[in-house]
């Protein structure tokens, strides 16, 4: 199973730590989880589901901190999130819809982003609408980790998200994407020039040798 939608399911324990851990173990290829209104979703749920060595990359931390937007809060959250999780496996999510999940907080988001980054992937779609604990710092962590892969973001009704801070993260992420592309383009240009120069000199050498032999 690659996708599961349990939005508004009436069962109170849905996506509780034990349930999400079991789901991750049973469905390691699950990439899409829509669990709006799942009140039992907590950071422990993600710790139970994600691989045990999941931690927040240092690069993510530096990006969040350097924007000056909620930096200290993000560091505190991330230091908690760096703690080892309990599960193994290869579970991570690329599409998570957690709207109205009251206990979902920044630490959950950072773990989600780190879980995907661990496998070289990223959170592509994130819906945390009306999650009262989410702040721009946690979202900044997802934006920083996902970079240009983040396609859709729903933060409707998130009272604690200061949009100015969030857009600063988004702009920074976009600018970083530009820098990486330009750097790659420059590198490829240098490689191409070097290769053509080498080829040219090689041909000259061959010509000179032929002239000498003649």
């Amino acid at each position, binding site marked *: 199973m690659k996708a599961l939608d349990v939005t508004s399911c009436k069962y109170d324990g849905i996506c509780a730590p034990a349930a999400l851990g079991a789901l991750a173990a049973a469905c390691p290829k699950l990439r899409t989880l829509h669990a709006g209104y799942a009140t039992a979703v907590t950071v422990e749920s993600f710790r139970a589901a994600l691989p045990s060595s999941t931690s927040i990359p240092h690069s993510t931390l530096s990006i969040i901190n350097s924007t000056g937007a909620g930096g200290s809060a993000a560091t505190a959250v991330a230091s908690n999130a760096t703690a080892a999780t309990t599960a193994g496996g290869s579970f991570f999510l690329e599409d998570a819809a957690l709207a109205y999940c009251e206990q979902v907080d920044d630490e959950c988001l950072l773990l989600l982003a780190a879980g995907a980054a661990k496998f070289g992937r990223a959170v592509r*779609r994130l*819906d945390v*609408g*009306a999650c009262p604990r989410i702040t721009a710092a946690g979202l900044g962590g997802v934006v920083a980790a996902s970079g*240009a*892969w*983040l*396609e*859709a*973001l*729903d*933060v*409707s*009704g*998130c*009272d604690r*998200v*200061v*949009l*100015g801070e*969030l*857009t*600063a993260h*988004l*702009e920074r*992420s*976009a*600018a970083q*994407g*530009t*820098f*990486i*592309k*330009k750097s790659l383009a420059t590198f490829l240009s240098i490689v191409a020039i070097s290769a053509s120069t080498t080829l040219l000199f090689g041909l000259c050498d061959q010509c000179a040798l032929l002239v000498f032999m003649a």
Partner: protein
Amino acid sequence: MSSWHDDPHRSRLSKINSTNQGRGQLRSARLSDCHTLNDAALLQLVGAHPRLTELDISFKLVPSPVVSTSALLRLPPQLPLLRRLNLSYLEHVTDAVVVRFAEECNALEELRLACCLRIGDAALFAVAEGLAARNDDTRSRADGGGASGAGFVRGGGGRGGGLTVLDLHMDDRVSDAGLQAVARACPLLRELDAAFLRLLTDGTVDVLVQSCPG
């Protein structure tokens, strides 16, 4: 058979690629009921993510003044790929704002303007005007003509006529003339919220039934 370059959606994307290399990939931004929204944050978001196809900055229940008319007027040129737009309950949405979106965002399919109390028929005439060109385009394609010489499938880059959803809930300055113009120009319209439009008459309902069979 049309070539890749014939598709206006593609050519628009190429233009964006050439002018905004590496800019953000965010396609969907839902910021409904975000009371920290302001002009600067909105313009920063849109400026960094020109590939947005969905933008929701609406509010619910209570009209909000958080975004100014001048900021709204600056959005459309930066959102050429926009397909879904929700400006409901924004106090400063005027006819001029809707006109600008109708002119610049040709791929719009879903337009939600509930409780935008300042808009009237002028806005709807502009929407219908944008659609008329696309209908002509459709007709020429159906005849096997057209500048590109082929009936490519519209990839969201046509002229307006793809509008399928229109929400005018409580926009009580809208009258028969405006809505009938849209109905005639938008045969693909399948969802219309015209609740509390006190100026509407049965004549508009007849036009809608005849013009929008979907």
